[in-house]
Each structure stands twice: as C-alpha cells, then as structure tokens.
C-alpha cells in the first residue's frame, strides 16, 4: 500500500520545465534543418547576378587555373561528361566559339568534366578537337558551387565575378553562345 502511494506521488510530479523546453527545442531545431534543406533544394543553381565563389580547376594537362586570377575577364564554365550524349551536340559549337574569342584575351573557357573517367574524357576531347582547358571536377567541388542539376550546363561569369548568364542543357548554335558571351562582355 505504502509503495503504491509513493508511486502515485511520483506520477503526480509535473513534467519538468526543462523537458518541455528541450522537446520543443529539438522539434524546432529539426524543423529548421528541414527548412534549410528545403530552401537549398528549391534554390536550384547559382542565380544570375550572384557572386560566384572562387574555385580552381586542374586541367588534364596539369595546369592549375584559379578563377581569382582571372578577374576582369569573362569566364565561360561548361560542365560536361564523356558519357553524356547531349554534351556531344554542343561540343563542336563551344570549340568554335572559343576559336572566335581566343585571340581577344577577354574571354576564358573552362571545361569542367563532371564525374567522368579520364581515358574516355581524353578521347572525347580528342574527338571534338577541343583546345580550351578542360579538367576533372575533383570531389565534385566545382559542380557543388554551381549546384548543377546535370550535364551539360554552362555558366558565364562577368568581369566582376558575378554570374551573367546560364544555360541548362546543350547550346543549339554558335550564335546562341556568342550572343550570351557578348552581352556579358558589354556589361
């Protein structure tokens, strides 16, 4: 009998305040996390006008290119992969555009090879005679900066390091590429 009375008293104890606060804190923390994740997922790729964080690309030829050192130039970042069929549609056009701007020294083309195998990637570059620097996206670091959703995607960074334009999917013509770059140059 005595025992049961003690039991009753124990149970009568109110829920301690700290438990309540902790329960709500955990719940709200969890919700905040989900909200953050959701915002990230909804945001999609880098927005036009946003500052693009600096990154570096080590090309297949061993050359290291740092975007910080390219301030004042327009940078064309093209994501591709050798296993990506649509990438092949725009490969020749990109090279043609590069040939057009190459001598001006105002525009830099960077090919970022997204999760690919080196042998096939080199074969791809050879097949399309691509001459601008290309390199693997090590640890997918660069694609995560741009939050790409797939390949091919192309991002054009203006002279101030801000995103000027982006193209999801392959370019259809050279003029489409050059008009994008020209408007970035004229900004």
């Amino acid at each position, binding site marked *: 009998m005595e025992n049961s009375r003690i039991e009753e008293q124990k149970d009568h104890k109110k829920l301690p305040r700290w438990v309540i606060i902790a329960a709500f804190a955990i719940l709200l923390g969890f919700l905040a996390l989900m909200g953050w994740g959701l915002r990230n997922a909804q945001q999609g790729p880098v927005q036009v006008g946003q500052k693009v964080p600096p990154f570096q690309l080590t090309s297949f030829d061993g050359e290291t290119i740092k975007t910080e050192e390219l301030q004042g130039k327009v940078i064309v970042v093209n994501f591709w992969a050798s296993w990506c*069929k649509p990438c092949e549609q725009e490969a020749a056009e990109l090279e043609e555009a590069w040939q057009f701007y190459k001598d001006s020294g105002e525009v830099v083309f960077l090919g970022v090879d997204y999760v690919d195998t080196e042998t096939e990637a080199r074969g791809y570059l050879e097949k399309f005679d691509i001459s601008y620097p290309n390199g*693997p996206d090590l*640890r997918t670091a660069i694609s995560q900066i741009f939050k790409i959703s797939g390949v091919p995607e192309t991002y054009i960074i203006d002279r101030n390091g801000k995103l000027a334009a982006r193209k999801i999917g392959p370019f259809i013509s050279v003029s489409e590429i050059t008009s994008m770059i020209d408007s970035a140059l004229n900004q």
Partner: protein
Amino acid sequence: MIENNTTLFQKRRLFIFFILFSLFFLGSPNLVFAQNDFPTDDQVNAIAKELYCPVCENIPLDVCPTQACAQWRALIKEKMIAGWTKAEIKQYFVDQYGDRVLAQPPARGLNLLVYILPPLVFVGGMVLVYSNLKKIKKVPEKIVQNPNIDDEKYLKEMEEALKVMNKKEDLS
C-alpha cells in the same frame, strides 16, 4: 547508346589485348596465363559492389546499368590491371568523385555523428526503460501461482482468458 557501348568495350578489349601482347614479349608465358584472366568481371564487381554510382542515387556500381557506370567499371578494371589495390582504387574514386561514392561516410569530422548518435539515443532509451522497470515492486514469491502448467490448468486459464477477452472484444 548500345552501339556505343559495344565499340567502347571492343576498344577496351583491344587495348587490353595490346597490353597482354606486349607483356607476352616481356615476361614469361606463365605470367601471361596468370594475367590472362585478370581481372575477371567478378573481381571487378567485388570492388564495384562497395562503391556507389556518383551520378545516380543510391545504386551500387556493380549493378548500375548506365553507360557512365560501365565506364567506371572499366576504370576499376584498368586500375586493377595497373596493379592497384582495392584500397587505392577506392581512394582514387573518393578523390575524384567525393565521399558519396563510399557506401558509408568515412568516420571523421561531422560524419562521426552517424556512428555515435544512434547508439547514444539507444542507450538513452535503455535508461528510460530501466527507470520504468525499476519501479517494479518485489512481488513476494508466495503470490506466484503454482508454476506447473499442466494441460487441465492451462485449459481452464485459457477458457477464462477467452471469456474475459471475448467480453472485452465485444466492446470494440
């Protein structure tokens, strides 16, 4: 895509053949026989099984049907022929494609949470359960009914239980 695959594989076989051919002239014939089967698809898959496709979600590399994955399997084969160990190949994949190619996050930094939190919560749960069980009162041995369960007795108990339960069931 299919045609492409095939030519790719044929190319690769040619390439391997070339390597083997040169080895034939360099090394002893025994070596060639040893090398001839190496690496078999099974040996490649043994490594691919522990890696995840970097572009598709949650699909192990050994069973992923896309062309990209076929290329990665070929890459593993290439590295194996080059004499790389399993650990080296896995590390190469991590360096190239990031941590997500591993089946489990490497246990360092924030990732430690993956391995620490569930046991911690479970221990917490055990403490809670224990604190509940601790309230159990010692029931004097006398109260415990005759532990013999013979059929007659069981029958009675069962019929009683049935009666009680039937009554209770009727309520719902």
